[in-house]
């Protein structure tokens, strides 16, 4: 028998349920409380990071490498990755190295550099690397060209920075950088030789 008490109970239950559903949906839409979020780190470029010859010129090392490990978040919003160098396209680098890329994870948030995919363990890339100011660590250069996924035969040559013609050109704007580059590379190699 449907009584007034039944009706009240039923509507109260409906009201509570509706409140939860609407509040939950609203919170999810507004704040995305239950899903991982990806947030961009936007940057102001130091030079044209979309110009292949400038990226090649500015980089201390350009290598084809596989990512074999991911480390903890380190200073300055960066994450360390372990790479195995398969080929050096600029500078002499072989074996296993730690490189750091802009971007990090914190809670359910992943902060990724604008225009550049975060490195993934198991993938192969052509990477543009710069010796950091401490001459001890290697940074992945920012921008859209510094990280390029490669797989299969001939992939490195057909990648933007793998183009052999690019290596012989050096942008005039970066001549001052070129002079510093030899010193930076030498200091970096010396630091690592001493550490071993």
């Amino acid at each position: 028998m449907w009584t007034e008490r039944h009706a009240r109970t039923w509507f109260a239950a409906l009201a509570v349920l509706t409140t939860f559903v609407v509040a939950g949906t609203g919170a999810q839409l507004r704040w995305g409380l239950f899903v991982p979020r990806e947030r961009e780190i936007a940057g102001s470029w130091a030079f044209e990071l979309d110009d292949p010859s400038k990226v090649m010129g500015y980089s201390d090392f350009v290598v084809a490498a596989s990512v074999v490990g991911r480390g903890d978040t380190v200073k300055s919003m960066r994450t360390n990755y372990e790479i195995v160098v398969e080929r050096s396209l600029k500078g002499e680098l072989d074996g296993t190295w730690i490189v750091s890329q802009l971007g990090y994870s914190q809670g359910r948030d992943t902060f990724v550099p604008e225009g550049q995919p975060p490195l993934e363990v198991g993938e192969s890339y052509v990477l543009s690397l710069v010796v950091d100011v401490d001459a001890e660590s290697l940074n992945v250069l920012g921008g859209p060209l510094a990280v390029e996924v490669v797989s299969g035969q001939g992939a490195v040559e057909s990648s933007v920075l793998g183009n052999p013609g690019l290596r012989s050109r050096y942008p005039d704007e970066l001549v001052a950088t070129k002079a510093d580059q030899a010193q930076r590379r030498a200091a970096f190699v010396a630091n690592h030789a001493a550490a071993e």
Partner: protein
Amino acid sequence: MTGMATSAGRGRLTATLLLVVLVLSAAIVTYPAWAGSHTNSYDSVDTSTNPNEIRWTSSTQYISARNHAIERWEFFRGADVDWRPDTATTINDLVFRDYSASDGFCGLYNHRPGQDFINFNINCLGTPDGGSAEDAVATQEAGHALGLGDHELPKWNGVVMDSCATCTDPRVTSPTQHDR
């Protein structure tokens, strides 16, 4: 019997009204998520506690550039967004600070839960000298804090939100009409 039917009818009406109120409330709460008022889906303007203002703190040594950026955006956007130093009784939205890395950037904007960061790269900008490179970078990063995105195509050389704020000659250190 009639009284019971009337009561059930009132109950249904109440439930319907309740539903309408809840749906409208949800629409109001979620409004910014579907309205999309900025180029980016994020900014440093904390609409929940300090409507239309950015409360900031600073540990940067590029003070002149920071002040330049704030002054230019306030002038350009008028009463749209107020930039004010954080106080003991307000919630901080944005921190100006420095870092040093050889990474190809002169500045970075990191939008985070809670407070955001504008990071000036000492390795790129060098010793503070109040020059146009610092002003250009600060103004661009402050534009990100207002929700504006980067402009990467060459046709946007000449707007302050160009990805390479320091590349043009002369450098763009103030917002242009396009940056509105």
